[in-house]
């Protein structure tokens, strides 16, 4: 044994380089910890919206603006993207490369449709007289739903990145966890929308 090798500590599990003392990979644990912290972030914005939505409203009320059938279709699209995401993870574990690529791309497209719907909704609200600074309801509404939209947009970028890696053949069954971790983020964005759709749109 050389002097240099005695200075480098040996890996705790040399035969299993990905094994950790917690039993789960550090990347997956980090994503779950991040999602736990995101609960606090979105909780703050949802609470603020609930607190201010019926205060200081000049003319325009939430019930005057919301188009429930349109937003229901948006919710359906996001729910469907969760299905295609979980099918991508499932295909990745079976090492079915073509299906992985198909489902990842479909998920990204459905996410894009959701974002397009949100842009349309924001535009129509603005045209009906509700700007970001019109009243405190407008500020809280655009901040909450806009923050969610930013999360969806980041998720689309992550999906397209993983899709590009899959096309290049860099994602296989041995690193299917990469897709699973992106999927965790995507599903979280969906559960946040489940709350927003009920609390903001359906409960007036």
């Amino acid at each position, binding site marked *: 044994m050389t002097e240099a090798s005695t200075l480098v500590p040996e890996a705790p599990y040399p035969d299993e380089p990905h094994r950790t003392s917690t039993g789960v990979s550090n990347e997956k644990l980090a994503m779950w*910890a991040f999602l736990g912290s995101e609960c606090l972030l979105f909780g703050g914005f949802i609470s603020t919206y609930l607190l201010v939505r019926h205060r200081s409203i000049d003319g325009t009320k939430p019930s005057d603006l919301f188009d*429930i059938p349109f937003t229901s279709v948006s919710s*359906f699209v996001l729910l469907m993207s969760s*299905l295609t995401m979980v099918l991508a993870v499932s295909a990745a574990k079976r090492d079915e490369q073509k299906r992985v690529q198909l489902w990842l791309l479909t998920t990204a497209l459905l996410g894009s449709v959701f974002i397009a719907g949100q842009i349309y909704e924001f535009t129509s609200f603005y045209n009906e007289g509700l700007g970001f600074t019109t009243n405190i309801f407008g500020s809280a509404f655009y901040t909450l739903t806009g923050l969610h939209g930013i999360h969806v947009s980041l998720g689309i970028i992550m999906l397209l990145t993983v899709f590009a890696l899959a096309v290049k053949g860099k994602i296989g069954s041995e690193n299917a966890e990469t897709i*699973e971790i992106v999927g965790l983020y995507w*599903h979280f964005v969906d559960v946040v929308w489940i709350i927003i759709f*009920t609390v903001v749109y*359906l409960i007036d």
Partner: protein
Amino acid sequence: MTTEAVTQDEAYSDGHEHTSDLTYVKIFVFLVAVTGIEVGLSYTDMPTAIFLILMFVAMAIKFYTVAAHFMHLRLDNPLLKRVFYFGLVLAAAVYIGFLSSMQFFD
């Protein structure tokens, strides 16, 4: 066990139970149905307390279904469940306290 008898749910070797694609589709149909009920309820004229309870129950069912089945929290390592639910419960406690202090529930 014959080769034919090996189902998709058992066809993995990472030590976890797995859900079939058909089950995922059934879960999705269930989620869409609950969403449809929620939207339908929003058009009814029922007492506010009952309406709120029904809406929050439907929302909680959908939240749990996605977290447990699509995010695999039901089958995955319990440590992940604890980490996520710690954040969720902490957020709920903090913001219920915050809203109470602002007389939101009065």
